[in-house]
């Protein structure tokens, strides 16, 4: 039988050794992990304009298609000297709407058209959901979307990051005929003909309302910017 003293010293040493080992590993691998996240972000942005990039060519494709980027605020004024790619959307989401930095990515498509890509961020059932939405040159019609999530239910809410769901957004419009902002809603039932609604996924009501709300909340902030573009 060991004494209490021995047990205390033993566990202290063990914990210190383990903590040091973990720190070394974490610090060593951090640059690689951050690079992975950066590449994934590039892949997501490209995916929203229907460009499929692999891990290896993401950087090259990104510089080819994304010609510029800038950051605006909710009154459509440009914020200077901020790198749109480095804006942390999750952190911005916590600020009040007036203080938020809103990144915009400008993509040059293969057919010569310009497309704008906007990041969106919201909450699903179990955790955050986020994505990118790209608009066609009319600043109204959705070119493509890409969604991802932290931990939605596999087979149900988690399906928002699959192609068959994301395809439903293609060609939907954000503004109605009177120029009023309507966003694209995700609702139950069949809405193939409605230009502002897509069909939700059965069994994932909360995730889908989360996606729906995310699009309204985030795209609303870009409304002044898009309206100004539309008038021109």
């Amino acid at each position, binding site marked *: *039988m060991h004494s209490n003293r*021995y*047990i205390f010293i033993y566990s202290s040493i*063990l914990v210190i050794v*383990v903590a040091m080992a*973990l720190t070394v590993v974490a610090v060593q691998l951090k640059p*690689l*992990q951050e690079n*992975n996240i950066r590449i994934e972000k590039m892949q997501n942005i490209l995916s929203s304009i229907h460009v499929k990039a692999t891990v290896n060519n993401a950087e090259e494709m990104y510089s080819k298609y994304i010609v510029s980027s800038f950051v605006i605020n909710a009154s459509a004024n440009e914020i200077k000297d901020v790198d749109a790619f480095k804006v942390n959307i999750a952190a911005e989401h916590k600020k009040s709407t007036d203080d938020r930095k809103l990144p915009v990515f400008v993509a040059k498509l293969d057919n010569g058209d310009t497309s704008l890509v906007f990041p969106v961020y919201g909450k699903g059932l179990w955790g955050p959901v986020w994505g990118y939405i790209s608009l066609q040159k009319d600043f109204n019609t959705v070119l493509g979307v890409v969604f991802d999530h932290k931990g939605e239910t596999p087979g149900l809410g988690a399906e928002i990051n699959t192609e068959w769901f994301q395809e439903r957004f293609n060609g939907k419009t954000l503004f109605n005929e009177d120029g009023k902002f309507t966003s694209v809603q995700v609702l139950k039932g069949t809405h193939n003909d409605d230009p502002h609604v897509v069909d939700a996924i059965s069994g994932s009501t909360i995730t889908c309302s989360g996606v729906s709300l995310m699009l309204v909340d985030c795209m609303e902030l870009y409304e002044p910017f898009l309206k100004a573009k539309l008038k021109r």
Partner: protein
Amino acid sequence: MKESIFSPKNLKLLSGPLNLNNPITIQVLGICSALAVTVQVKPAFVMALSVTIVTAISNLIISLLRNTIPSRIRIIVQLVVIAALVIIVDQVLKAYIYDVSKKLSVFVGLIITNCIIMGRLEAFAMSQKPWPSFLDGIGNGLGYGLILVLVAFLREFFGSGKVFGFQVIPDIFYQWGYENNGLMILPPMALITIGVIIWVQRSRSRELIDKS
């Protein structure tokens, strides 16, 4: 007398868990992750490899420390070792194979609670020399991995017509009206597949069947 490194007794530690003492089909441990990560072969393969590494190294470490570990806190010591190894594996996966690590998501973290690892530490490493413990860890990891990859192979093959992400059922079959079995992708089919594997194994090895 010094025992050779690969004596028959040591080799049995390695081969036993692959068949007659398999952690999943005989000991029925680690079922949770076996159901969750077997939709495709690649994540299952990475999971199997991770579990093998964690069982082998944690067995080795605990066996080396076995005479110093105070018995009153031995479970805590075991958990600290396992948790540290699992975090390291998770970090390495995130750094080198990010896409797979995203698919495995919480299940890498849940290796900590995988009964196979704690079970082997308590039952074997605490009372055996380092080398046999290491082999026992490898054996059990592989035994787990074997079933995992087998289930994943069947599910990916019948569920998506692919193996390791490559299409193996030719397009012409689909044109003739062949359909992927969507049921195979759903979790219940993993349970049924494991059940079938257990059935096949028991009908081949009669000694496994309970006498009663």
